[in-house]
Each structure stands twice: as structure tokens, then as C-alpha cells.
């Protein structure tokens, strides 16, 4: 402990400089120090916590740097080799997706069900974008989207088993899968989807899954929906 003669205050910190006026501090006698501690209490120092912050920031920045370098390299190679087909756009979308995916999982603090739902939705969007860049036929609608819905159902099932105490938290995700299936049927009716096999499988899985839960666990489902839909 020292004393700032300019500010006329005692400074607990282990320093020679006043944090307020930056003047050099004066020593305090042992008696005076004892009196101040007895009056105001002893010092309560803080740990140095900057290293942890630096590490996380550095990792994300390093990743961003590597991705930008990779994409720049991809653009150059693309333009030099196959300038008529811009596959570098695909790598750009892919890298952006991976970066945002990691950022979302590391930084965002929503629950697993929200994260899974968001990632499935984003993966669907990614597939559609890639498909649009490459052009017809709409393989993303016919195969990837139903595939993602089946994957979503499987993940919901696994998570319901893993977190049995909170299995009902995933009901909304299940409802989302059914809604996605309905949307695919609309696209089928509009003629965007030709092959019906995977569409039937994903709709059946989602529908039956939701039906089983709604019939055999009706009370829990009601409670969960009441919570989720409270106005």
C-alpha cells in the first residue's frame, strides 16, 4: 500500500504510480498501513485474466486468416484453370459455412436442440445454393433435403435417448421436421421434385415419430407445448 500525495488517497495496489493522476506514490508507514487496513479492510487483488481472452480471439482470427488465404488461392487456381466454371464460388460458400458453423457452436449459447435445428436449416440452405450454382437437376431438393430431415429425426431420437430427463425439449424440433416434410410435398406438387422415394421415407419417419410421441406421451407433449407457446 502507498499514498498519492496529489490525490490525497491511499492506493492498495502493488504499484508505484497513482492509477488516477499517474504521479509517483509516497511510502506509507507500517502503523498507518495497519490503521487503513483496520478501517477499510485488506486488499482483495484480481487475477490476470487476459491470456484466456487472447487465446480464443487468436484461434478465431487464425481460422479466418487461413480460410481467406484458401479462398484467394481457390479463386486464382479457378481463374487460371477453368475460368468458364466458377467452382471457387462453391468453395467460398463451403468455407463461409464452416466458419459460421464453428462460430455458432463456439460463441452462441443456445441449447443443443436450437443449435441442431439451426445447423440442419443452414445445411439445407447450403445444399440449395450449391445446387443453384451448379444448375439443374434439383438433386438438393430430391435427395439432400429429405436426407437432412431423416438425419434430423435420427439426431432428435438420439438426443431424446441421451437426455431422457429433458426429452420433451426436442419436440419442437420434431414439429419442425414435419413442417419441412410438408414444404417438400408442396415443392413436389409444384414440380420441383421428381423422385418421390426419399420424400415418402422422410415424411413417414417424421410423421410416425411425432404421432408416436403425441399419442403415448400426450401429457408431456401438452406441457411442453403449453410452455413453448405461452402468450
Amino acid at each position, binding site marked *: 500500500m502507498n499514498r498519492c500525495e496529489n*490525490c*490525497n*488517497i*491511499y*492506493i*492498495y*495496489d502493488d*504499484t508505484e*504510480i497513482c*492509477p*488516477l*493522476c499517474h504521479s509517483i506514490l509516497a511510502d506509507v508507514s507500517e502503523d498507518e498501513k495497519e490503521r*487503513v487496513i483496520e*478501517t*477499510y*479492510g*485488506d*486488499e*482483495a*487483488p*484480481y*487475477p*490476470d*485474466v*487476459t491470456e*484466456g*481472452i*487472447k487465446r480464443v*480471439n487468436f484461434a478465431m482470427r487464425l481460422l479466418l486468416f487461413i480460410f481467406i488465404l484458401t479462398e484467394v488461392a481457390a479463386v486464382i487456381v479457378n481463374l487460371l484453370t477453368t475460368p468458364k466454371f466458377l467452382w471457387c464460388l462453391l468453395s467460398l460458400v463451403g468455407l463461409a459455412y464452416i466458419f459460421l458453423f464453428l462460430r455458432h457452436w463456439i*460463441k452462441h*449459447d*443456445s*441449447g*443443443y436442440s*436450437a443449435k441442431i435445428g439451426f445447423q440442419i436449416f443452414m445445411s439445407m440452405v447450403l445444399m440449395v445454393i450449391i445446387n443453384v450454382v451448379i444448375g439443374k437437376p434439383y438433386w438438393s431438393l430430391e435427395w439432400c433435403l429429405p436426407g437432412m430431415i431423416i438425419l434430423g429425426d435420427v439426431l432428435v431420437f438420439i438426443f431424446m435417448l441421451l437426455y*431422457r*430427463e*429433458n*426429452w*420433451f*425439449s426436442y419436440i419442437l424440433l420434431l414439429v419442425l421436421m414435419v413442417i419441412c416434410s410438408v414444404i417438400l410435398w408442396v415443392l413436389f406438387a409444384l414440380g420441383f421434385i421428381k423422385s418421390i422415394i426419399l420424400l415418402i421415407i422422410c415424411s413417414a419417419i417424421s410423421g410416425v415419430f411425432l404421432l408416436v410421441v403425441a399419442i403415448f*406421451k400426450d*401429457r*408431456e407433449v401438452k*406441457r*411442453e407445448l403449453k*410452455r*413453448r*407457446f*405461452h*402468450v
Partner: protein
Amino acid sequence: MKDKKANKNNKKNEKIKGSSVINENIIGDEKEIKQDNKDKKDSKKSGSDGKKREPRKRGKLSWDKLDNTATLFPVIATQEMSNVYRIAVNLNEEVDEEILEEAVHRVVEQIPLFGMRLREGVFWYYFEENNKPLPRVMEETQVPGAYINKTRNNQYMFRVTYYKCRINLEVFHALTDGFGGSIFLKEIVYQYLRLKHPEDLKDEKDKISSGIFLDSEDSYVKNFKKNKKYKKYKSSKAVTLEGEKFVNGKLGVMHGFMKFSEVRAASKKRGLTINQYIVGMFVYAVYKEYLNSSASKYPISCCVPVNLRPYYDSHTLKNFFAMVSADFQPDDREYTCDEVLNIVKENLEEKITKKNLDDILSYNVSNEKNMLLRIIPITVKKFALRRVYGASTHATTATITNIGNFKLKEPYEKYVENFYCILSMSKGQNMKGAVLSYNGILNINFSSCLTDTSIQKRFFKLIEQDGVEIAVETNGVYYE
């Protein structure tokens, strides 16, 4: 192994629930903790979490709506604007991690609000009973008031850390305000000390203090009166304290300790309450140091949260406060300290009245009562709330809160040296202050993301010139 541990915890919880258990059992409990510590070391090796909370019947988890103010916090909370506050206590001895963890576990079991997690519904957020294990009590590794990542915190909305003799409780504001946080921290301290000093405190009952209300009503809604003249929060621009900021999310913390009696005498001499005196001095310090005593296009607006409980006879543990502001817009002439203090006094006296607080409360709740707004999906609400909040962020220069006098029960007092309160930064507010007192010592805590300390320097100098002796402590970032 897991089952064994769960059984043991259940037995322990049964003990807690049998509230007539007195401290004779604590000595036995301490042995149990030692055994638990052994288990915990094993679990640490395997990287698992702390103790599992008492299992509930599946699907029967209790839930609750958020209070009126809490609705905003989850929407606007980010890494940079965490909406987390810290209340800390400095003991006379080094903190024992295992005992502290056990104390937290026991207190959470008895104060259900802190055992909740935040969930997102289709229209609103809501609280749901959290049956995940409590997060580990760990040594402090983050800046005060750092964002609480709920996924990494097992969805709990509070965090307990320690460093040397200090116990830190950090709470996400959606859960409760300083009133609720201080009750929770005091109970943790009591429980910790009972476990740490079973012989000394053998006459103390091993349960949370009698007289504590576990009421978690939404007092905003309960006290809402339909009013045609709603008092809207102002959104006109105020002076924003700008300057060089700390990098890497660092936060400057400065505690000023002074005798309560000296501050009271100084404020009385100027015909002010302690609150008016502190807020007034801060506004004057901003005027002198930031505006250099010159005229300003915008007012210096210092926000003061008012605890509404005494005005509405509420004992809720949830948030129940309203914001009023002390505004001072300097013109061309130079103002003296007394003039500024009087302007602040008049401002606060005019705004902290039952009538005005009624109007603020009615305005806050009126939107929530609107059926059309209620049925808007939460995604749209979030977007709109962020825009509305963003537009009002520059309406405040700083916030100064007084969380009051901390009083501990007599047998525990000798173990506790001091209390602290630290507020995290908000958008547009680069400096905040929190005031509290304990054992005759007033502690004014400034948190700031600005490297410059001239406002704090002027503030403490003004008070010192009024005959108040001051001792200052910082978190060390001002020397880096």
C-alpha cells in the same frame, strides 16, 4: 459409481429439506464433503461436471414467465454487453473451493429461482426448472461481469467463482436484480461459513435465513394500473463518454472505500442524501473532466435504478426496479459544484416519487399487456426490441446504482471484510458505478472500458475535498 453418488446427494438433499436439522450435523457433513472431494477429484480427471441436482419427475419441471424487465435482457445480451453484474464478498481467510461448491449447491436447492434455466418459446422466453448439475465453482478466470455462456454453464444463469479471499457471484440480469443477487450471495456466505467453521457456528441453523421471501411474482404486472399518461423512457441523445478503450474485452475496475459516516456528514452539509451526493459529484466530475466546463449540445444523463419494492410493498426475488435519470445540460456559463449538485437533487427528487414511478411502471407493462404485441413470434420481437434498444442506447451517459447497506447476522460478521458490486458495460455507456456499504464502510465501485481515469480522479478528489478519507483499489489493468 454415478448411482452411488446420486444416492448420496439425494440423502444430503433430504437432510437439507428437513429444515429442522441444526448444526450438529454440520461436522458430520464436513466429513461427507471430504469424501465428496475425493469423488470430485476423480470426476475432475474424467472431466465431468459437478454434483447432479436432485432428479425430478420427467416432464413435470416447473416453469415460470419472465418478469417485465427480464424480457429485454436475453434479447440484447452479447459477449460485449453481457448484462451480468457481480456482487462479491471478501472474507478474512482464503476460500476453500470444495466447501464453497457444497455451500452453493445447498443454497440453490433452497432458493428455487436460482435453479432455473432460460428457454425460448414461440412467443416469449420463459424460465424452466434446471435439472442439470450445477456448474463447477472455479477460480476466477474472466473479467468481472463477463458474459455467461449458458451452454458452458449448464444453462444456469449465475456463476460463482473465487480468488484468494474473495467469493464472486455473477448473475445474468434476466434472473434477478441486485436485491435478489445480494440475498443469494449472503446465503452462500452463511452456508459456506457454517460448513467451514462448524464449531464456531454450531448454534446456527443449517438452512437459509428465516424471514427471506422466496416470492417470485412479477411485481410489475401485479402493480400495473391502466394509465393514459404513460411515462415513456427518453430516447434523446445524451453525452457519451468516448475515449481510448481497453483491448481484448478488458474492463477497468476501481473501488473507492470511505467511511460511511464521513460521506453522510459531507452530503448532509450540502443538504443532500448520500445518493444525490454521489450522483451529483459524478455528474460534476463528467462536466469538469469530459466537457471541460464547456457548453454541451446534449445533457449529461446519469441513470439511477430505483428499487421499487419499498414503494409497492413487494418482496419478489425477480427484477423489480425502474430507471430514472439525473440530467444536467450545461450552457455557456461555468457551473459551480453546488449548482450542479442542486440540479441533480431537484431532478432526482422530482423523478423518484410514487406518482412518477407508477407512470414508468405502467408504461413498461402496457406493451406486455397488448395482445397484438404478445402474439408476435419471438424472432420478430427480438428484432424489434434490438432496434428499439439500439435507438435508446445513447440516451444515457452512465449508470450509478446503489444496492444499499449489507448487513450480516452477528456470528458471521467477523469472517467478512467487505462487499463489492461491479456492473458490466452497456452499449453507449462506457462507465458505470455501483455503491454499497458494509460495516460502516461505503464502497463506490467504478467499472469502465476506457483507459482514461480522469473522471474517477475528479470524483474522488471532490469527495476528498469534502473531508472524506479515501482508499482506492483497482483490478490492475490501469498499469498494463
